[in-house]
């Protein structure tokens, strides 16, 4: 993912997940470069996106 503040590109696993202060989680990742809080893409959106990615790859583009 790309940090909405500093533009740093990182994997979700690299960032710090939330700060633990919210009940139910805030679905956010803190950027490892600047610590800005970035919302995680909802699972449904990820699935739709991966579907499109697969289609594109199969199409050989």
């Amino acid at each position, binding site marked *: 993912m790309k940090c*909405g*503040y*500093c*533009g*740093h*590109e*990182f*994997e979700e*696993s*690299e960032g710090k997940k939330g*700060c633990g*202060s*919210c*009940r*139910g*989680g*805030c*679905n*956010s990742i*803190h950027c*490892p*470069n*600047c*610590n*800005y*809080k970035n*919302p*995680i*893409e*909802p699972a449904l*959106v990820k699935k739709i996106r991966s579907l499109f990615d697969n289609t594109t790859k199969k199409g050989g583009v």
Partner: protein
Amino acid sequence: MEKSLDKMTFSETIKRVALVGNPNVGKSVLFNALTGAYVTVSNYPGTSVEVARGNTVLDGKEWQVIDTPGMYSIHTITEEERVAREILLNESPDVVIHVLDARNLERMLAMTIQLIEAGLPVVLVVNIMDEAERMGLKIDLAELQKRLGIPVIGAATARKRGIDQIRSAIGTYVKGPVSDRFTYSDSLEKDIAEVVNLMKGKYVLSRKCLALLLLQQDDEINDVCREQDPVGFEKLSAKVKEIGFHRRESFNLDLSLERRRMVSDLLAGVFVAPEKRVDTLSERISTLTVRPLTGVPLLLIVLYFGLYKFVGEFGAGTVVDLLEKQFLVEIFNPWITGLVNSIVPWEIIQELIVGEYGIITLGIRYAVGIILPIVATFFVFFSFLEDTGYFPRLALLVDRVFKYIGLTGRAVIPMVLGFGCDTMATMVTRTLETTRERIIATLLLALAIPCSAQLGVIIGLLSQSPGALMVWSICMLLLFLVVGFLAARIMPGDAPMFYMELPPMRMPQLGNVVTKTYTRIQWYFIEILPLFILASVLLWLGKVTGFFEKMINAMTPLMASIGLPKETAVAFIFGFFRRDYGAAGLYDLQTKGLMDARQLTVAAVTLTLFIPCVAQFLVMKNERGWKVASIIGVGVSLIAYGSGYLLNQFLLVTGIL
């Protein structure tokens, strides 16, 4: 540095490669491409800076890959840079990969020279070549490799281009002798030689590099030299001082000019840019946003259209009117009240669910009818602005002002996040460099930064009377600056340096804005709904036991002293649970016509200044300790009440509202 070296133990069988370079040049992408999924991230000993490590097999041997924090030079300024340098010094990597951005080759190549000069086993990766080519830049990598005397690889790691060559360059790297191909002017070389001749002991970096760092007044290198040669250090230190005196403290400038000359010589005929550089529209807008003369009016325009027109008039006006008044109050609440009353025979339970402070008629009405539309429109505005890349430019714009209040542009991150949620933003203040900065930022967040819901409700509330909104905005800005300024005087110290690499400005993408807004609204709703319901239950308990009435009576003189009617005590009691709940209470009072413009303004200012919620106070306690949190809590409450009192007197005397 020796101490931290002692603490660490490294396997001798495993080789190490360190990735170094400026922030945002693609180090982490390269790190992931080299290591795969199995990485460990831990704080570097004695610091809060995280360092990622992962393993890989190259040319049949196991290697540890270290992703160092961003650094601009071996002469360090920030904690991240210090950690990156310590890794080079203490962990003696077998290969150092310097990753730089091809588009900024001229600016970043100076560090490559420093690394080579330091005698480190450097491989240069000229990254983001795809973008550079798109811009029409031409780089003769073979010639650059010849001139630098180290392997140079062109790459676009985000597109997986060049990864195989990088893997092969690491695996087959053979260290040559320390290169002395970069020479400075005769006078500087003479100064360096005089310092080098007085250095004794064993060092990881070359003596020439260390001599330059000593002449740049590098305290850590000073300590290293003292440890290596306690007897001769005095002479060495005296020589460094003598050279500094002769150069009238202009050493850093001289060195920087010389390195710039070296880079231009290196790049002559190697780097060709298109004859006429055409600034794109986004680059022109970017320049306008960071220059004070154009940046401040632009900021005001953004706030006017984004906050006042969109969040205030549209969100808090049109949408709340539709959802709360026309749907919940006029249709849904009468229906649900009738239904509950017909099913539940006990009046007390009816009161709990659909009474004056009922869970549905107050708690859910506030959460869904008032807060949700306001927060939703605020987050649309926030996500839109975020996606354009405006926030880092705001950091640069306010950096100069922030210096007066003991902060730097770096503090823009917690401040901007505070407009979303102050509690989380307080936690983010831990990323600021000094304790002084952290305390000042915590104080200002608790005092003068309203969270999204509160900001939206207040803008919606006061936008009916633009004068009131203006007074509220001036009060907040003034208090932010004055309290920050005083806090910076009470806690003396220097504000640290602030550097930031600006990502490009871009057209916001609808998909990004929708996704980010959705996630933020979801988080906020999960956060507030149970609290609003709990607050309704407590208020109901207070009402049935008579405690609530007693509290209102007790608070009446306090309310009267700042010119507010008795009924506002209810909003302030709501505000005790959460400031946004209190702001929604004020919204309710305004719609009932119980407050004039002056009273609304005083109430809005006073309520905004109080600590937002119990959760924020607890986070303040965790982050800053009981003592500081209590001082801030008491101080903020006194300032809130005192400001309300003074503002009321001022408005009464001047009659401007």
